[in-house]
């Protein structure tokens, strides 16, 4: 048997794409300090579908902001795709958000004056993708979420479920390292909720890393792994059996 040139362990099991190491966040307002994250450790590997679950005030929004590079830690380390995010400046952070993270917000956050495809192409605009290719990729992303026939519709002409699917297409279009969804079903009725969640299932089956933040158990249970957060700490981290 010939010795392989590389360590097979490394090739088969690369490090986690998302890694929080002793991550702490303290908000200071005047003389009052509030410790929103009390030194948590979390590792998420490529292809995982993780729900971060907790009541409001548990610190899950803080985790979302940290993971999305929208906020910085006051202590500890956040490594995204092997890079220590804490060392990046504002322009590099913008580039990380652009390349590695696809956001899905509770309130959709679509630009109402732009048609669906123009909304979807936005990350590519900031990613310096040429115009013709942007339109092609935006159309493909919209087709993937089942809105191939609504390219030119403005958000106001679509239902809430459809708008959220446009937002998912926007999160997909840049082929990010992870899709980060913050209460994506919070503004949706049960039919649209099911709709969007099945979309996440499909995307995960295609190998996408998804981090979903929610306070609803039924939503969390669609994920393969549930991380329970309470009072700024992880209280349980389990593989979802259901």
């Amino acid at each position, binding site marked *: 048997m010939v010795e392989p040139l590389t360590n097979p362990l490394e090739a088969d099991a690369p490090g986690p794409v998302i890694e929080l190491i002793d991550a702490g966040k303290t908000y200071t307002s005047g003389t009052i300090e509030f410790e929103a994250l009390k030194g948590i450790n979390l590792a998420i590997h490529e292809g995982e579908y993780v729900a971060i679950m907790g009541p409001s005030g548990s610190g899950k929004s803080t985790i979302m902001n940290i993971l999305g590079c929208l906020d910085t830690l006051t202590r500890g380390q956040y490594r995204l795709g092997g890079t220590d995010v804490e060392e990046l400046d504002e322009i590099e952070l*913008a*580039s990380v*958000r652009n*390349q590695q993270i696809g956001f899905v917000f509770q309130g959709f956050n679509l*630009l109402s004056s732009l048609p669906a495809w123009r909304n979807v192409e936005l*990350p590519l605009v*900031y990613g310096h993708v040429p115009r013709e290719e942007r339109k092609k990729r935006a159309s493909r992303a919209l087709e993937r979420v089942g809105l191939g026939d609504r390219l030119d519709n403005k958000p106001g002409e679509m239902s809430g479920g459809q708008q959220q699917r446009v937002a998912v297409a*926007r999160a997909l279009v840049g082929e990010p390292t992870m899709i980060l969804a913050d209460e994506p079903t919070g503004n949706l009725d049960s039919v649209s909720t099911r709709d969007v969640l099945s979309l996440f299932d499909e995307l995960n089956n295609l190998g996408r890393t998804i981090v979903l933040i929610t306070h609803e158990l039924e939503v969390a249970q669609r994920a393969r792994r549930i991380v329970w957060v309470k009072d700024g700490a992880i209280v349980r981290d389990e593989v979802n059996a259901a």
Partner: protein
Amino acid sequence: MTWMESFRTSWSAVYSHALRSMLTILGILIGIAAVILTVGLGLGTQLDVSAQISSLGSNLLIVAPGSSTSTTGARGGFGTSATLTIKDAEALTSTVNAPDISGVAPESTTSLSLTANDTNWTTTVTGTTTAWTSVRQRTLARGAFFTQAQADASAAVVVLGSETANELFGTQNVVGQSVVISDKTFQVVGVLATAGSDSSSNLDDVAIVPFSTAATDLVGGTASNAVSTIYLQAASDTQLSAAYQEADALLLNLHSISSTDDADFTISSQDALVSTATAVYQTLTILLTGVAGLSLLVGGIGVMNIMLVSVSERTREIGLRKALGAPPWAIRRQFLIEAAILGLSGGILGAVIGVVAALTLPAVIGSSIVVSPLAVGLSIGVAIAIGIVFGVYPATRAAKLAPIDALRSE
């Protein structure tokens, strides 16, 4: 993000708030149009005045009684006696003492009532010599100027300005008609060709009589020999300053004055008049342009105001764009371009309206407006600069927004 992308985004922001953008543009537009018009009006008036002064005649020196020196200010003649008389004018005609002066036209002017048939008309009656037409560069439309023989005989003859003839007779075909001035009947021998008006008087509303006739029949008394102005014509352009020296020396000598500072007369040249008038109008233009510039400043503040509104109502959009990967410079550029679009549109529209007004207004207000391409180009540049300068603060504010706060804003 390319410049083209930034521009497209900014344009759609301007376009989607059409009314608001139009009102902001209006502020800049008014400022730019005002600047173009005031500068144009100033330049136009300057040219008008220069042209009027040139129309007095060429190579002209104007001798007026009284002195105005920089140290003593204006000084009138001594007592009631006139400081310039027909004797001075006669002395200046000497080819020996004043070889560089080719023509001398003294003028004594009085405002008198003229009567023809039943019509009365008050005008400026000027007593002068036969040299007047050549020195003042006037021609006759009808008849002829009075002759030296008529002047020597103090004949009761008059040459009327075209307007005066019209007012008195309703026609210019009046040679041979009679006009009564101060109870004396004058015969009209000629009518002057139209010359327009200069800064102080209507050149077409005049009555010209021989100086001797004016002195004996119209003025009388001690003032009869006094002249209000002596027009001197230098033989050529190059002899103008020599003519000036000769006139100055001659008059000082005649008046027994030793120092130029004490002179009781003033000699000015056309050039001096032009530059004085030009300086006055330049000051006026600068003042008015300053006022117009203020309205431009107000327009700029309008741009800033609307940009701040634009930033604050799009805080969420800014947050989203940042979350999707827009670096601060892209956000700043987007808002700067938006401000520049407002400034540029205002500048171009203002220039168009200013130029159109400059072309149409002279017909209404009767004074010319000169549109200088430099002023137009410059004001469009200034408009863009105003947009950008007043856009910097709002744009920087947008660029500095933390994405997380921006996203949370409602």
